[in-house]
């Protein structure tokens, strides 16, 4: 049988899953802290904006956002299939496109900082 080309979409999915497993809990903790009124000075708006002005920070955040969105898109694609939605090509195209559009939006926003 021919080898599958699925690794092309699975690679970023696996990478995104691994990244979100580490990043999401941190984001939840920080958001909770902020909600409780405790915002360390280092994580203040001006400070974070300053960090994101650096090209390497922009690149890192872009990569993290792309991989996370792609991971969600791929997981949703498989969930749709498992739930009985068999129009896989259509579902895949729509979800991956959404992930790419979200990433492009993030890149455009970051570029403006």
């Amino acid at each position, binding site marked *: *049988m021919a*080898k599958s080309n699925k*690794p*092309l979409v*699975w*690679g970023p999915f696996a990478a995104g899953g691994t990244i979100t497993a580490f990043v999401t809990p941190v984001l939840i903790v920080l958001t909770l802290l902020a909600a409780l009124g405790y915002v360390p000075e280092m994580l203040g708006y001006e400070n974070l904006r300053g960090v994101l002005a650096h090209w390497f920070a922009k690149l890192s955040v872009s990569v993290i956002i792309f991989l996370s969105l792609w991971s969600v898109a791929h997981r949703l694609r*498989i969930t749709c*299939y*498992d739930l009985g939605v068999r129009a896989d090509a259509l579902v895949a195209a729509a979800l991956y496109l959404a992930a790419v559009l979200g990433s492009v939006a993030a890149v455009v926003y970051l570029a403006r900082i």
Partner: protein
Amino acid sequence: MSERLVEVEVLRYNPETDSEPHFQRYSVSCEEEWVVLDALNHVKETIDPTLSYRWSCHMAVCGSCGMMINGEPKLACKAFLRNYEGVIRVEPLAHFPIERDLVTVIDDFVSKLARVKPYLIPKEDKPLSAGEYRQTPAQLKKYKQYTLCINCMLCYSACPEYGLIPKYIGPAALSLAHRYNADSRDGGREERAQEVAATEGVWDCSFVGACSEVCPEHVDPASAIQQEKIANMVDWYKEHLMPGGAK
């Protein structure tokens, strides 16, 4: 020893006389330490000799007596009656066609198993006089747990993907392919990749993990499949993105 009365509801199907399967209930007076297989043997010996099911070792080694017990794939020889309340429902393994009563047709699994070449394909042939193929304990540890598979097919019954996609090669065959791929003496990974790296190979797995939950030998087929996915992904990127396509 205390005896108690257990109600067992068994799926019956005789292709010669039945148009479709039906349940038949038996009352079995059983001992405290009996397993479901003991109850079935008791039924066959004393109540109904026509009941058909596979079994051999009665000690979770042969992998013959896999069946659905209250909807869960289990080895009948490992399922203690005392752990169940009320009527115990016994059905043939899910996702396989029924041959007769609790006996299923396993041809699909057997042919898939053969396709992944689950045997050592030596990296280099050397004459007997050159001695053994040596291996360190660390090299052995990499694949040892995957050698414990007894081909009982509980993982195929538990796997929702196999239920959805009958072409999917499935947990046990893929984890046995990984067992040999991960063996330092083996050189057959590329040959096996024809099946393992195909869409019906590891890529139809969506990592539900039910295979590893039901495995009576703790083989953890899900981990084998994920390791194969990573290895095959690296291969794919090498073949498609590297100049010259390292094969």
